[in-house]
């Protein structure tokens, strides 16, 4: 048992919950929420590795998580803008409303 393991298990649980939700929910916003959860799970494992990993570098893990947060912000903004655009055309945020994009 290494000290990072509880955090990694927590991250795994978060990832799995997010994934199940993102695949199952009909509401596009909630699918996006699931993706956010998965991103956060990745962040958590970065920080856990930074804190408890054998690597001596004091900053890389933190930096990775920091950039990841920044990108997640951008991702949320664009994703929600897409949802608004979708809503404007279909009057619905259901993922099935976007099925005409299928090839």
């Amino acid at each position, binding site marked *: 048992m290494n000290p990072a393991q509880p955090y*990694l298990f927590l991250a795994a649980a978060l990832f*799995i919950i997010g994934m199940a939700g993102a695949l199952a929910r009909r509401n596009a*916003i909630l699918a996006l929420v699931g993706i956010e959860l998965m991103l*956060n799970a990745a962040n958590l494992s970065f*920080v856990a590795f930074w804190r408890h990993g054998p690597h001596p570098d004091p900053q890389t893990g933190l*930096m990775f998580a920091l950039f990841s947060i920044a990108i997640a912000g951008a991702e949320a903004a664009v994703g929600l803008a897409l949802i608004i655009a979708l809503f404007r055309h279909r009057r619905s945020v259901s993922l099935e409303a976007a099925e005409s994009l299928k090839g």
Partner: protein
Amino acid sequence: MTPWFLLFGGLVVVGALGAMALRNPVHCGLSLVVTFVGLAGTYLDLGADFLGLAQILVYVGAVAILLVFVMLLTRTGRGESPEVRPGGWWWGGLVAALVAVGLVGALASVSGWKPRSEPMTFPTVRDLGVALMTDFVLPLQLVGVVLTAAMIGAAILALPERRGGRVGRTPKGEEPEQ
């Protein structure tokens, strides 16, 4: 494992479960905030002060607000359709279970973990700033570009379309195309 870990970890899991399982989308959004707060607490517990506070500032202060705003903007008067896609829980759960088995298996079988050779040195904010401006200056610039592009893109996507197909403000008194 500290008591803080149990507290914040519990918040994270409960919040995440709520965010994915509650019926009302706004409740899901608020539950997501619980997750974010729990994660920030976990980061603080791990010694990453700056990251934990940035997590609160970005996720609670911006992303969660954006989410609930969009939820309210995209409300339709009619009754909500079923929240879960037909059969969604089945194959969503199945994929998640497979991933879970893989992840847990991988985590449980980790071996040869070397303990940290030297004591942990926690970087101060100044250290982080110096690192951002020296070693990580290229990623920082790239993130800046990405954020700018995302901001412009989001604004353009969310602006109502004009009839001529050009992007811009809708004329007064005219509803956006539906």
